[in-house]
């Protein structure tokens, strides 16, 4: 049987033994990447049995699992004995390192990186270089720096990262909020899954409103009806769009009012035609742009007829109100 490479472990030498799966304590905090076993693993163990032993510390009253949580879970469900490799008593740090080494084939995505760093950071923040090295990650890389920023957030946010509701780059924005502001923001991110840019925009605008108006996040979100949007029956996408638009309007009140006014007038002017009317340059100039698409001569004729008609629309005055 192949025995995995082990670090330089002091005596006694690793020993293999069999015991009941239920007997093994599989609750260690170093099992930071634990997840439900895959159907493939379940089938494999059913068909061929356990091919690789789990790693345990058997120095205490019952074996403590160091690595092999998924195998243990399957064997426990099948009520079978488990083949254990006893590596003896280990420090928490070393248990974590052994777990990391046993799972070195796993893809280390952002949330896994954060889970691993969370464990080791709590033990000895000064030794994180060893962890980055074990993960094959440059500690100066953007991913590493963002993950370290993320650790400043309360642990409850880690789950949102794992669920894909937020991405690692949001760490920068989130870390600019106080703990009570983060608590206020939490439901808006635990309820919906945000794109990276969507989340960053919302966080930036809320923070800027807070600084500008000297308000807490709770006051900002209350003023824009955040709770009502949260309680709404809208689809997640529509709810997020509604919330983002409300925050943007509060952050840019004049600009959003101009956009709304323009949009109303533009819709009225090009109504029932194929023309589209837009403004350019974020109102820095008074120019508007009319565009259409035609595929043949008759569509072209229709577009010209429509253009002539819409040229005398009374709403143009609304649109050119800002014109100098």
């Amino acid at each position, binding site marked *: 049987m192949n025995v995995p490479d082990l670090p330089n472990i002091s005596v006694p030498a690793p020993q293999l033994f069999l015991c009941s799966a239920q007997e093994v304590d599989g609750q260690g905090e170093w099992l930071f990447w634990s997840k439900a076993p895959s159907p493939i693993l379940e089938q494999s163990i059913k068909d061929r049995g356990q091919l690789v032993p789990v790693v345990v510390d058997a120095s205490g009253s019952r074996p403590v699992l160091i690595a092999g949580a998924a195998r243990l879970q399957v064997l426990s469900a099948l009520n079978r004995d488990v083949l254990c490799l006893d590596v003896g008593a280990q420090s928490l740090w070393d248990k974590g390192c052994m777990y990391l080494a046993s799972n070195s084939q796993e893809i280390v995505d952002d949330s896994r990186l954060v889970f691993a760093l969370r464990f080791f950071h709590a033990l000895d923040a000064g030794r994180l270089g060893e962890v980055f090295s074990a993960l094959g990650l440059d500690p100066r890389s953007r991913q590493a720096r963002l993950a370290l920023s993320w650790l400043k957030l309360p642990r409850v946010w880690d789950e949102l990262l794992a669920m894909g509701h937020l991405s690692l780059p949001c760490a920068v924005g989130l870390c600019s909020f106080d703990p009570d502001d983060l608590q206020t923001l939490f439901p808006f991110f635990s309820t919906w899954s945000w794109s990276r840019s969507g989340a960053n925009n919302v966080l930036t605008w809320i923070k*800027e*409103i807070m*600084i*500008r108006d000297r308000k807490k996040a709770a006051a900002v979100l209350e003023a824009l009806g955040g709770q009502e949007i949260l309680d709404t029956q809208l689809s997640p996408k529509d709810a997020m769009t509604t919330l983002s638009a409300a925050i943007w309007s509060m952050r*840019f*009140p*004049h*600009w959003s009012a*101009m956009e709304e006014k323009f949009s109303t007038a533009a819709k009225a002017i090009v109504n029932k035609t194929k023309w589209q009317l837009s403004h350019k*340059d*974020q*109102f*820095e*100039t*008074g120019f508007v742009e009319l565009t259409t698409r035609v595929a043949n001569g008759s569509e072209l004729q229709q577009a010209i007829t429509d253009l002539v008609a819409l040229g005398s629309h009374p709403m143009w005055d609304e649109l050119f109100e*800002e014109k*100098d």
Partner: protein
Amino acid sequence: MRTLPAYLQGISRVVVDATVANSVLAQRVRERLGNLPWEVLAEDQFLASGLAREDILYLKNYKGRFLRFCPGTSHYQCCGYQIIHIGENCPLRCSYCILQAYFQDRVLKVWANQDDLWRELDQAFSAHPGRRFRVGTGEFTDSLVLEPLTGYSRDLVEFLANYPQVCLELKSKVVDLSWMDKVKDPRQVLPAWSMNAPFIVEHEEEGQRATLEERLDAAKTCAQAGFRVCLHFDPIIYFPGWQEGYAQTIALIFEYLRPQDIAYLSLGSFRHMPDLRRCIQENFPDSTYIYGEFITGLDGKQRLLRPLRVEQFQFLVTALRQGGLDKQLYFCMESDEVWRSVLGRTPKDFGGLYRYLMDRAFEK
């Protein structure tokens, strides 16, 4: 030894390039800052300012061009003024200042090879004896802030006396009139001060800048001595209570100056690149005006939403016109649309801003 103004008392070191260590300017500085360590850099050495949190005065052998056009900006109307480059950076601490993004250190650089400067200026001015030059030194530094140490403006006005086709603007936020007695013809020099709302001066111009009253009092002294002065409302900042603030400053201007004392007055809205915004957030966390409604202008810089700029400009222009100023008013880096809507004219209507300001500078 003379007591230095407070804004120069933060200088902790003087560094000088070996090639200019014996220059007139370096000797003058040495005499005035004899109490500070004097460090000479050999020709192959560079000043490593690192993360120094105290001002370092660096007397440098400058090898670039001394006379150059203001970089201006694309898509907007620029005034076309020329810079006499005498140094870089400033010991004042104005939150909105672009120099903190440009230089990112606390090194006050002074070009000490003045002979090279005089040579280049002489060549430029002598090559075109019939051509007028409107020049200034206040682009990359405050024109007068280092004057007590370097006497640079004093040297410059003395030098320019031989070139009557040159008009020099000295733009500042401090009061130093020690250069005045070297001016032969006051029409050749335009002392200029930065104006803003009292709240902005108090909260956003940290450091030992002069108060508005001190600046205007100095301007009045200059006007009484036969100079015409320039005033610059730049950057105009959108903040709660801006109307009262700018109205107060404008009222103050007319307590000290008559319209005919003012050669020209510029108006410029706060605009910035992303780098500056980051500097302000880090260096001046209490400055909230950066969270105004800024859009990306045609030149890529962040600018206040146009109707808000126009609202501010119209307010200031109305008040300035009531005081008797009109022809003196111009915008720094604005579009024709803004010119038209606020002043009712565009630079094209009067032959271009460059020519117009040149005429105003040389108006007798």
